[in-house]
């Protein structure tokens, strides 16, 4: 069986309108993949930066996968939330990216988007917060049914992932 180690960090997030952000993340894989060790989802700390613009999570990711096939290569998906001083949480964006397929260290910037409501909902969102969220979070990383959504771009999530592959060349895979 071929194995992959994903060893890295969710470094932080930039480009969002407010500070005090946290990020929920998860990894979705196809049926041929199995997790041998590590957490497949989690939630980062809430960071409120003092002097600079970016929110830093420094959240470690260490997962060991085994696979029998290439289909369903792991995808890491994110939800960025804003927590205000009263402890209320507001959705700031969804995003996903594939785990890189070549071994080595990769710095990845993952763009995010937020569903956009009608004009009335946008006005009420700017006064009261809140706003539409996806009912089914699978849509973050799947392409089916996306045509029904209207969204607006939000900031970026920065990742630094190191990928170690094992036995892929034994099966003739070049990556």
């Amino acid at each position, binding site marked *: 069986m071929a194995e992959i180690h994903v060893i890295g960090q969710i470094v932080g997030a930039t480009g969002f309108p407010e500070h005090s952000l946290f990020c929920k993340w998860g990894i979705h894989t196809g049926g041929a993949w199995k997790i041998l060790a590590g957490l497949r989802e989690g939630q980062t*700390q809430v960071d409120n930066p003092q002097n600079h613009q970016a929110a830093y999570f420094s959240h470690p990711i260490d997962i060991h996968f085994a696979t029998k096939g290439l289909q369903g290569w792991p995808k890491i998906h994110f939800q960025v939330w804003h927590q205000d001083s009263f402890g209320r949480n507001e959705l700031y964006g969804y995003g996903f990216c594939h785990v890189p397929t070549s071994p080595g260290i990769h710095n990845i910037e993952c763009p995010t988007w937020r569903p956009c409501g009608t004009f009335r909902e946008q006005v009420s969102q700017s006064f009261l917060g809140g706003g539409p969220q996806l009912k089914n979070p699978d849509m973050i990383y799947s392409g089916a049914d996306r045509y029904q959504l209207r969204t607006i771009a939000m900031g970026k999530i920065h990742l630094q992932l190191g990928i170690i592959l094992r036995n892929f060349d034994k099966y003739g895979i070049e990556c």
Partner: protein
Amino acid sequence: MATSSVFLVNVAGQIETGEFQEFDDLYCKYCFVYGPDWLITSGLEESISQITKKSEDERQLFCWNFPLDVTFKSTNPYGWPQLVVHVYGLDVFGVDTIRGYGVTHVPITPGRHKRIIPVFVPESSSTLQKLTSWFLSNRPEFVDPRVVAQGEGREVTRVRSQGFVSVSFNVVMKDMKKLGYDVLPSDLSTVNVPENVGVQQGRVSEA
């Protein structure tokens, strides 16, 4: 002959500098956090640096130049070591307080790497607590600094990031390829050297 399933990772580096806008007189401590399959065969697992002042020029840097020299042995890349840096300083009353925790993985590819690590402190949960913690020099800190290297339980922490620490690593590995692990893409990892480079007839070649 028994085939070994162990690989070694040697890390030689330093905690170079720090950047903190509001503080002075800082020292840093580091420790390595790693999974159950890993072992340190040589080097210091944790240590404390000197106390340094901010530079007087416009860079406003703290320079520790603090060496890291450690060798790990493992059978499994899961639990790859992480460097946890915690920076402490003296506050107005002369008491040691935490100025930031930061964490980064030891790089997984051999070679020289430079990392700029953001550091953060836990935040008090209310303004009254912030005031009393300032008076009593009792700011919130983590009971065990190793918690910043874990993925679980982080969702309940609220932190404030307030500086950066710059670390450089030189990583050397042994036997990763023998055990089948690829840490570099295949076009970079095999180097073909022409057979007669540097060989001269009847003389020792000079480099």
